[in-house]
């Protein structure tokens, strides 16, 4: 009896060692996946309508609270008109919006970071936002030349847990690095922010000021620091796979799609639940504000599972 048992045990141990060796081999090959990488998908989609409908009212209100957004808008006095436009339009729909500037302007309020270097400025802003987040758990970083529809951002991250690392936007590839394009806006969860700020202390892998002759754009520096802390870029898209973050203007995208079949220009262009557009003039942004929050055909009713109220003291939405 004992000898049979011990044979069995020997078999177990051998098999176990075999499997351990195999799994080490695997992680060695995968390379980019480090520990902390809880989710494999690089395409991030919103929760489906069916799932939403199944949820209870209390879960709905939990999610509505959880999904509040802190907007960091990175401005400079050179972009004063766009700054004023962002201030007057989409930023009012953030639960908290803070403008971070390189130097102060008499015309508009902002947190003056007194920093000319874009990457250093972004780091300071991120630290400031994290410290002042209160109970907000989602962060959206943009320049004032971007227009964001915050309600659709909330819809995208509605069922995602901000205590997990999320780094979302329009992703591009630079060699081995997947990064989120700055112009179309960057979404970070609370956990991603926390890890990022932890990484800021690492002067080797995430330096504040690089010593290279050429400057790496801050969007790539951000991606690198995040990658070292186990946070990877994900492309935000709708259920049909259409990108929700756009680095071009609406007219540009429509114009691009007019070529083959003009009748399909709208269908091919952009998602109904688009989150961002960039490269628009201030007056185009005012028109977009009207187009998003006001202009609509009478009688088309949507019974959305969530309700977002209009902001106080605003007359253009």
């Amino acid at each position: 009896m004992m000898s049979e048992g011990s044979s069995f045990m020997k078999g177990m141990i051998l098999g176990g060692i075999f499997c351990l060796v195999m799994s080490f081999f695997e992680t060695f090959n995968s390379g980019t996946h480090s520990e902390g990488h809880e989710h494999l998908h690089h395409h991030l989609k919103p929760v489906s309508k069916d799932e939403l409908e199944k949820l209870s009212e209390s879960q709905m209100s939990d999610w509505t609270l959880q999904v509040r957004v802190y907007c960091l808008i990175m401005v400079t006095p050179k972009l004063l008109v766009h700054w004023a436009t962002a201030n007057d339009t989409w930023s009012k729909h953030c639960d908290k919006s803070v403008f971070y500037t390189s130097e102060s302007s008499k015309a508009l309020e902002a947190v003056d970071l007194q920093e000319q270097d874009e990457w250093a400025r972004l780091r300071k802003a991120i630290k400031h936002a994290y410290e002042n987040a209160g109970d907000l758990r989602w962060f959206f970083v943009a320049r004032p030349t971007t227009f964001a529809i915050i309600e659709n951002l909330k819809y995208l991250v509605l069922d995602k847990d901000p205590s997990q690392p999320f780094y979302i936007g329009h992703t591009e590839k630079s060699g081995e690095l997947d990064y989120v394009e700055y112009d179309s806006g960057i979404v970070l969860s609370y956990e991603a922010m926390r890890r990022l700020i932890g990484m800021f202390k690492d002067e080797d892998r995430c330096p504040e000021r690089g010593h290279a002759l050429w400057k790496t754009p801050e969007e790539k520096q951000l991606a690198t620091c995040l990658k070292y802390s186990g946070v990877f870029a994900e492309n935000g898209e709708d259920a049909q796979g259409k990108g929700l973050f756009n680095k071009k203007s609406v007219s540009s995208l429509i114009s691009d799609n007019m070529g083959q079949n003009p009748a399909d220009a709208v269908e091919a262009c952009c998602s109904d639940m688009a989150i961002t557009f960039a490269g628009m003039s201030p007056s185009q942004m005012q028109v977009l504000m009207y187009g998003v929050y006001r202009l609509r055909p009478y009688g088309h009713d949507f019974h959305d599972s969530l309700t977002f109220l209009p902001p106080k003291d605003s007359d253009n939405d």
Partner: protein
Amino acid sequence: MYDLSNGGICCVLVLLIHQKRALWVTKLVPIKGSLSVSKLNSNILIVKNRRAALDLSQKVRVLCWVMTQPQHLKSRTQHIRATWGKRCNIVLYMSSEASDFPTVGLNVLEGRSQLYWKTIRAFQHIHMHHLDDADWFLKADDDTFVVLENLRYGLSKHNTEEPLYFGRRFTPFVAQGYMSGGAGYVLSKEALRRFVKGFADGLCTHNTEIEDIGLGKCMETMKVQLGDSRDVLGRQTFHPYPPNNYLPRQLPRPRPWYLLYEHYHPVEGPGCCSDLAISFHYIDAVQMHTLEYYTYHLRPYGYKYRFNPGERSENRNNN
């Protein structure tokens, strides 16, 4: 040996299953309470209830005629056909020549000087062939963008047997005023009858090349009333220029040239325009599709609109 291999296989299996589970867990989106996300489609935000709009399209039938010409069919008119044209109960593309577009040939020449002739012939054609096919008759240019649902909503409270016409009211040139041609104007059935009768009886003549002024003068002669197309908050619905002429905020200033003809006191900035706007003009092909996208596609999920006419409280600050 048998036991050894058994043990080995058992262990390998146990470990493989453990690995697989780890993979499954990572595919689910980790959130509080662990709700697995359905991978199926159905994230299309379908319009759940278009009843109101559908009912209106049967109760308030609109015939649209678009003033166009052969050279514009590809550069302009096809974009109307691809966007709002199909929302009319009947749409007629009026040109100097008939074609497979399809266009109706009006037996006139082309050119700015012929515009009023086109209008006269168009309405005569409609009166002869389509009088009973619709309740209201809209004229638009081939660079006008129209939101039919909002037009029907605006017209629903009015009686088409009364002599009425609606649009963007201008003051000069005609004593009672007239409606801007570019912004589009709409005639009641009775107004259409009177317009055609006016020409038949010689009370109205081709006395100008400017079609909106000409039609306005004939309306005055035939005792057709100008309606007020503004919404309940006094905001305009018909617009003779694109939205970026009106929406950007301005400091108080004397009227810019494009607001000089206005009958009602013009408002610049967000108060210019109704949420339920009916038309914009000088809209090129790209803008046509852009407005289509803004009106019928792009929207903020879950947003509770401030302006809800037809609901009990029409108060803007009801949050």
